[in-house]
């Protein structure tokens, strides 16, 4: 690992000043992606600014309409929070399936979305539920937050503070994980956010999470498996690697969508 400096600021103002003063500085949340990346020398930050002491990035709040999760919330906290389980049970399901227990004890929601790995789970939840990302500078809708492969709308020195999820009527998520790593080969998140309003997010299949407009239109008219029968997914532009070809991923999108819908339909409303 290439050497770097490290600071654990006690205040948000100090953290932002450190990041803004150095274009090669990087924020460190849980480090479950960043540290392996540093080991492979795929990133060479001059300075790591550890966010773990900042209270503004902590805490889970559940209201009648929303669930707000602090950026530094560990996956295990999200997975075991009774308020989240009651308000958005699919978020509990998704968080409890990320990687494995040791990673869930350390990795954070803010870190995951800021990294925007195409094979990550949370981006599908944010886009599928129509969440909003509150940063140190603005509020960014999920549809505008994830901009491409490992890319987000965040600018240098801008930190995610909280993620605010509107409570859906019902929702489901299914991922086809890589059996060794647990990363998403292809996943699908389906949410009926209001009567007749459906959002469908696909992760793992493309370079970045994307909405499946054809399925959204079909399910908005008829929230049933029958509506998915005629939906299609082109292989064009999808990821291809030794685990799955683009054509196979295209097929998995349809399978994951059926299973995600099945989970949503089993949600009592």
């Amino acid at each position, binding site marked *: 690992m290439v050497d770097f400096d490290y600071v654990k600021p006690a205040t948000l103002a100090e953290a932002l000043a450190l990041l803004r003063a150095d274009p090669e500085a990087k924020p460190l949340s849980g480090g479950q992606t960043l*540290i392996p990346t540093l080991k492979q020398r795929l990133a060479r930050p001059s300075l790591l600014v550890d966010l773990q002491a900042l209270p503004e990035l902590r805490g889970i709040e559940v209201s009648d309409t929303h669930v707000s999760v602090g950026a530094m919330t560990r996956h295990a906290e999200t997975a075991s929070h009774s308020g989240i389980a009651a308000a958005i049970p699919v978020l509990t399901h998704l968080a409890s399936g990320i990687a494995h*227990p040791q990673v869930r004890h350390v990795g954070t929601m803010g870190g995951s979305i800021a990294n925007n790995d195409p094979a990550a789970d949370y981006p599908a939840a944010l886009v599928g539920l129509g969440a909003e990302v509150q940063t140190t500078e603005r509020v960014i809708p999920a549809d505008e937050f994830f901009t491409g492969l490992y890319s987000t709308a965040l600018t240098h020195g801008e930190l995610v503070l909280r993620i605010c999820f509107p409570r859906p009527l019902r929702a489901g998520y299914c991922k086809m994980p890589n059996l060794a790593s647990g990363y998403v080969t292809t996943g699908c998140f389906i949410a009926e956010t209001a009567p007749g309003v459906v959002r469908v997010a696909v992760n793992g299949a493309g370079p970045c999470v994307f909405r499946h407009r054809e399925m959204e239109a079909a399910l908005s008219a008829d929230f049933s498996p029958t509506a998915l029968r005629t939906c299609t997914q082109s292989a064009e532009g999808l990821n291809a690697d030794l685990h799955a070809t683009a054509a196979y991923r295209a097929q998995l999108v349809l399978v994951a969508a059926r299973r995600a819908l099945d989970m949503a339909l089993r949600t009592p409303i």
Partner: protein
Amino acid sequence: MSQISITVNGIVQTHEVEPRTLLVKFLREHCGLTGAHVGCDTTQCGCCTVHLDGRAVKSCTMLAVQADGGQVTTIEGLGSPTQMHPMQEAFQQHHALQCGYCTPGMIMQGVDIVRRGLAGDERVIRHELEGNLCRCTGYQNIVEAIADVGRRCPESCGGARRTAEV
């Protein structure tokens, strides 16, 4: 260099480290505790599993500076050859190890599984062991050892007697 203090197995360990020093290296080279193993160095094998503030983490995927001020328990702090922890005894009784390389991580993860009340169902135990690899393929006996502790003495791992529904 940064000076950090981590309470390891009840003893405050204060050392000067480079920021890039991994927690597992701090434990092995600065504290002389070689129970946590570096099997893969890529967050896959779980041989480096220790407890940080009561939760199982992979010490090869954490900087020592991140754990500054924290409480770490390693396999050396769990029990001793003359006074083994119930999980260590269970691994012995169930022959839950062959070469022994993965064992410290398996035992630390096993304690964490029982602490969280997830040792009541073999399927759940296997799911919870996703982050630990045994290349002697001894999983069956590992799962049985963890289930045994979950049944007999969950309080030894900080767990409750009742097993949570999953």
